[in-house]
């Protein structure tokens, strides 16, 4: 269930994050817009609605953790953390610049709010396992969230980690697969087929649910469901659109790791501004 106020807040935040993502990769001249935009709605819902998190104190011991295993979607995570107030929004445009805290892939020693240094795919679920295990050891109540790319799931380590999580009954671990059906060399099912993906996770001992990863209500409901699962970890397979929110990036493999050119940049920002105006009309007011 989602109330109007929450829907409004998340919609505006997601729009703001998408704008930042476009501005950041454009200013950097490199970076990964496609997988950032497909992950945006989930990141915003987690940080602005679901997670027990204090932006003023990102090292608070009781906080819920989020590990971005698909580290190349860093721009979306940085923009979400900045909108949340963990560090200044102004800093976003330093992405990938020499000396910046905003590395091309997340660096937990440089930037507050980053829980794990990722970028080499396939490693985040193992790290999240360790965090979930630590919570159990310390009898803490926090949850650990982790997001994987669908191409990333090809890494063998992901399945080692999948086995571990169910073996140790890590029911405080909630995963997302950003199922945008694309990796770098093309469609996942052509490069290295993943299906039946839900059955794979299930057979590894996970509770699994499929959702639309751009529907705030479905994201919230799925996390509520996952929190209720006892004795095993839960995986949410979120069907998404790579490049979501910018027409010419949607479903395009081309914008996996390429920023927009000048003309594309202008069009992208116009589209996102139109979306903001639409949201003002739908919800009234703005944020």
């Amino acid at each position: 269930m989602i109330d109007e106020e929450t829907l409004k807040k998340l919609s505006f935040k997601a729009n703001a994050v998408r704008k930042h993502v476009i501005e950041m990769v454009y200013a950097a001249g490199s970076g990964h817009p496609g997988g950032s935009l497909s992950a945006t709605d989930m990141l915003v819902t987690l940080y602005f609605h679901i997670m027990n998190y204090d932006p003023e104190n990102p090292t608070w011991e009781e906080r819920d953790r989020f590990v971005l295993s698909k580290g190349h979607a860093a721009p979306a995570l940085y923009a979400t953390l900045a909108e949340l107030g963990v560090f200044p929004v102004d800093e976003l445009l330093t992405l990938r610049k020499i000396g910046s805290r905003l590395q091309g892939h997340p660096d937990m020693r440089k930037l507050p709010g980053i829980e794990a240094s990722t970028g080499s795919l396939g490693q985040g679920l193992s790290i999240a396992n360790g965090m979930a295990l630590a919570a159990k050891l310390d009898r803490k109540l926090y949850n650990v969230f982790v997001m994987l790319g669908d191409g990333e799931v090809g890494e063998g380590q992901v399945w080692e980690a999948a086995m571990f999580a169910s073996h140790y009954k890590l029911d405080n671990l909630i995963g997302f697969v950003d199922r945008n059906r694309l990796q770098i060399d093309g469609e996942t099912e052509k490069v290295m087929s993943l299906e039946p993906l839900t059955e794979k996770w299930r057979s590894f001992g996970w509770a699994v649910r499929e959702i639309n990863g751009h529907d705030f209500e479905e994201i919230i409901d799925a996390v509520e469901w996952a929190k209720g699962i006892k004795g095993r970890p839960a995986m949410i397979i979120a069907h998404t659109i790579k490049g979501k929110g910018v027409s010419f990036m949607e479903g395009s493999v081309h914008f996996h790791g390429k920023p927009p050119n000048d003309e594309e940049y202008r069009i992208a920002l116009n589209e996102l501004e139109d979306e903001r105006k639409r949201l003002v009309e739908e919800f009234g007011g703005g944020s």
Partner: protein
Amino acid sequence: MWEMASQRVAFGKTLVEIGKENPDLVLLGADLSSSTKTSFFEREFPERFFNCGIAEANMMGVSAGLAASGKVVVASTFAVFATGRCYDQIRQSIAYPRLNVKIVASHAGITVGGDGASHQTAEDIALMKVIPNMRVIVPADAVETGKAVRAIIEEEGPFYMRMGRSDVPTITKEDDPFEIGKATVMRDGSDVSLIGTGIMVSQALKAAEMLRLEGIEAEVINMSTLKPLDEETTIRAAKKTGAVVTTEEHSVIFGLGNSVAITLGEKYPVPVKRVGIPDRFGESGEWDALMVKYGLTPENIVSAAKEVIKQK
């Protein structure tokens, strides 16, 4: 002054040529075929190209199996994943049984740029150099890359070859000979020897020009095979100039500098200084700015040269 060209493109084009001559050539990729330019081969010979997806360790194992069954295999991805992530698969399944697998990696070193430390590797040469049976090639430019690919495919056994992401100055000529295990003298000089590899050979040539203005004549050597090291050329250089600077876009620990310093330490000690990436992780930035920040400029080579000359 020099033309800039891509080593990756030279690699990709040469593979297509060799693919026409050699039906046993099989390529493997790991969801980066457009970046490593093995996509050229994939387009021409789709039945001999296999994408492994994002699963580098499996790719190395499959390479071993193909090679054990008579194929010549080229397995490609970014250098950081090709080496560190698959170290044990390379060691156990490829190098130990001495199988005919050529690991050719792109995006080595710090010139990767914006992706940052997770994608930059200053350790790949070290990791591959230490494995018995493994030979290590680092071509200096696009022209030499084409020749090196041919040479390692013609020669039986495992190889690691590294290339950068960025275009590099073309400093060798089409008709220059290329031989595995043989260094080339790019420029004569009697005061100091600058021994470089990869992109740093062109930096050494620039440094030699700068030194000449100060009346110092520097010899420049392109050490395109790191293992086996051309000890003969290394020792001959030390005998001739009595002072050596090594330079590489790799950690100063266990790369070219280490090989040269140890060889000379044991066989003909002279002052040696290493110009390379210091013992720390890289970061995001424009590649040329990173070259400055991490001490990989001609100026760095010039000051090292002056120091070793002083120590003679």
